């Protein structure tokens, strides 16, 4: 029980920081000081103190959405290792539960958006549903590759067993996995170049549109939930690069540095790229799928 609690507290505390790092990087590129590193924390704290406005159109589904978003985000983190700290829960096939928890989150985000009856939110919901169909197949292709490399269906084993040997023998495959997973992570979290989370209303297309009518405490939960989602998916990516069998302290430090690098990378991508036109997003995802499939071919030819 205790490891689960500490794992959850860890992600609760650190996930807004990742957003802070991204914000600082973007500010650096724009030549500004930018908001403080802890700004996402302040945002959440402010939202939790604010009152709530509900639309008269909405029903209990709308109020359930933030709870489900937060709960699924937190539940997904218990399968992910933080550096050398093993996840508190792992079992054969937990990788599938991990992916499908995000499915549950998405289902509720979408119906929460449709519950408002606003056509604008309907558009966002429709895009989210469509793009995530495509990003899910990329994610599964990546997982197939990891399963073939590690011969395991346990998420933490898929990510960091025999780090050096698998990078030596399967290096190209793991690079392809990392690149396509990075793209999936951007899509799943609606970051640039898929969607611009900072603009509101006029230019945002997917995630922020769906939560347009949420306010106060509910919005805080959803926001925090999406920070956690970014952090957890990011930590899956970073764990690929963390060597196994490090001492706990070095492992966690290595992991946290990795997360910092990830935040900076996302920040750089967001600074140097513009948002793609909406009809280009499927092309990007299909590109990522092709990369992952290349990895599949490489493994088949090497006869793993």
């Amino acid at each position, binding site marked *: 029980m205790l490891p689960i609690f500490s794992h959850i507290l860890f992600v609760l505390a650190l996930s807004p920081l990742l957003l802070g790092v991204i914000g600082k990087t973007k500010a650096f590129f724009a030549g500004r000081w930018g908001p403080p590193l802890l700004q996402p924390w302040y945002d959440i704290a402010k939202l939790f103190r604010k*009152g709530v406005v*509900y639309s008269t159109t909405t029903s209990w589904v709308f109020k359930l959405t933030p709870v489900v978003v937060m709960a699924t985000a937190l539940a997904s983190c218990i399968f992910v290792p933080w550096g050398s700290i093993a996840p508190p829960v792992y079992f*054969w096939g937990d990788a599938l539960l991990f992916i*499908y928890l995000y499915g*549950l989150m998405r289902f509720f985000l979408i119906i929460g958006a449709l519950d408002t009856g606003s056509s604008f939110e309907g558009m966002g*919901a429709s895009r989210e*549903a469509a793009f995530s*169909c495509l990003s899910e197949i990329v994610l599964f292709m990546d997982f197939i590759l990891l*399963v073939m490399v590690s*011969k395991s269906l346990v998420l933490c084993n898929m990510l960091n067993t025999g780090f050096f040997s698998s990078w030596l023998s399967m290096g190209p495959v793991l690079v392809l996995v990392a690149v396509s997973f990075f793209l999936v992570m951007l899509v799943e979290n609606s970051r640039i170049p898929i969607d611009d989370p900072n603009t509101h209303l006029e230019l945002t297309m997917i995630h922020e549109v769906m939560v347009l009518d949420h306010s106060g405490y509910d919005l805080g939960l959803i926001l925090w939930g999406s920070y956690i989602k970014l952090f957890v998916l990011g930590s899956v990516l970073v764990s690929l690069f963390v060597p196994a069998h490090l001492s706990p302290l070095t492992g966690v430090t290595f992991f946290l540095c990795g997360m910092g690098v990830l935040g900076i990378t996302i920040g750089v991508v967001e600074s140097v790229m513009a948002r793609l036109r909406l009809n280009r997003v499927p092309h990007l995802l299909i590109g990522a799928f092709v990369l992952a499939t290349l990895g599949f071919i490489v493994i088949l030819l090497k006869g793993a």
Partner: protein
Amino acid sequence: MILFSVSLALLSAGILCLALLRHKPRWAENVFLVFLTLGCGSAFISAVDTLIRQESFVDRLPWSLPWGEVTIGIDFVSALFLLAVTLLCFLAGVYGIGYLRNGEHQQDIAGHFCLYLVFLMSLMLVVTARNAVLFLLAWEGMSVSSYFLITYHDGNEEVRQAGLLYLIAAHIGTLCLWVMFILLGTQAGSMDFGRMSAAQFPLMLAGVVFVLGTIGFGVKAGFIPLHIWLPHAHPAAPSHVSAVLSGVMIKMGIYGIIRLIMMVKHFPPWCPAVLTAIGIVSGVGGVLYALGQHEIKKLLAYHSIENIGIIALGLGIGLWGQLNQYHTIAVIGYAGALLHVFNHAMFKGLLFLSAGSVIRQTHTGEIDHLGGLLKYLPWTGALFLIGSLAICGLPLFNGFISEWLVYRALFEGVFSFPMEPVILIGLAIIALALIGGLALMCFTKAFGTVFLGQARSQHAADLKENSAPMIAPMAVLAGVCVWIGIFPQTMVSFCLQGAMRILPTATNTADMANILRPVQWMVLSLFVLIGISIFLVLFRRMAMKNMSVAKSGTWGCGYAAASPRMQYTASSFASPIVELFREVLCLRRAKARPQQIFPEKVLVASEVIDASEHFFWRRIYRLMQEVCGRMKSIQCGYAQIYVLYIFIFLFLILIWKVT
């Protein structure tokens, strides 16, 4: 076994009583309820008894058919199917009483109930028959009685057409099954299933039998491209009948394939590949077509095809494991398929019943005409939501458990099998992932458009929730969905045991404990999820206490005159994916662009066309019509000419005999 015979006897008595009560609809309802409860109850208990005591029975009844005797048996696989059949048929029957009350066709109601019992009895016989002739008789009884159930509203032209299409399709399938069983019977020297399982079949014959079985059973199951009767028959039938058709009748095709695998055992190596490929095509095709549908029952019908695809994937990987001696993979794959059969019966039954209660109140199934029904039909809405979550395979609901098993078998196949199957299995995993994503889109679309937002028509305010006898069966189905979703151990271990019985060689039980252990861990993680949710709900309630909660309209982005009809429709919601796959889906659009300064009529209509129906089956039908039309000239109507035909025919036979 005695209990099962009692159940058959009770159902026969019920059929007789209802046939005599044709002109007393009120009586008919009560008689139907009594016999349905007793019949289903005793059969259900006998199935549960078989599962718990792990004994199978075979009984020979003292009445001989030509080519054999009446042999009835319940083994593990039969019991699992029997469980789904009795549970769903009972609940749908109870619902049907409420559904048909005060509707049209009151005079036919006793006949309808009578046929419902005939249908139920033939379903029960199909899964317990241990003789090919009895099996085919029951199969035929099932097809014919379901034809009459589908055409209950036979005043409607479309319903009659759909019924006819179904009847033709069913008989094409039955034809293949006759040939298949005759081939098996001649090789084994008996039409008895027990003898057939003991016999050895050459690989060549096994291949032929496999193809015939896949076609014959596939028509019933709804494999693409043999599925065309499904999307017509399901919307045409009354909702409780569609629930049973989709929930259990199409599963009889799956049962047949499993029985075939149990009897023949050794297949050529391409058979699992064919089964997997069928699973991929049916799964992805079914859900893509569903996404393009705007009629709720038609949408659900296409989803049945999708779920049959998932079951076929499970069977395919299971057969692959069986033929390549990977017993663990085979057991997990078969268990996933078996559990999905049961799960699909539960959640699809639930969805059809709740769709029925929407249709009963609003008199339309057009998704884009509805909206905001969660406020008027709160129970129906909540139960439909549970069904949707379950069918999307999301955690906490039963669909996830069976899909998880299928995924697990596929993933283990990926790193255990040699290269050639791995390519197809990898494709199957991707297909299953795509199915999951698309199903999520389709059901957020259906639930969101029908139950959320504002009502798109004026008279929504007059709607009332349906009566308790209609809600209660749905609530039970939803309860089963959640029960299996949160406490899957019981059903998973039953299905694993069933899967072991499918394999020709015995597997050790240590294997089963290994397979079950992750399931227990999964339960733990689901409880973490539930615990966090409960905590958040309580915390939210506490935090909200001292906060202002205001009510206001939905933010309309500055536009003040929004009307309910301006809400995002189901067709717009689905359009990104439908557009992406427009070549596959044969998307057709009709448009009238606005013209002049004051445009009069503007219109956009889109329709997704079922390629296999329009470009394959209709062409074949036209060809047949042409050929048969030419042959019509033989039929001239003069008796003398017919006598001449007989003479010529006899003469030809004489010549053939002499030479």
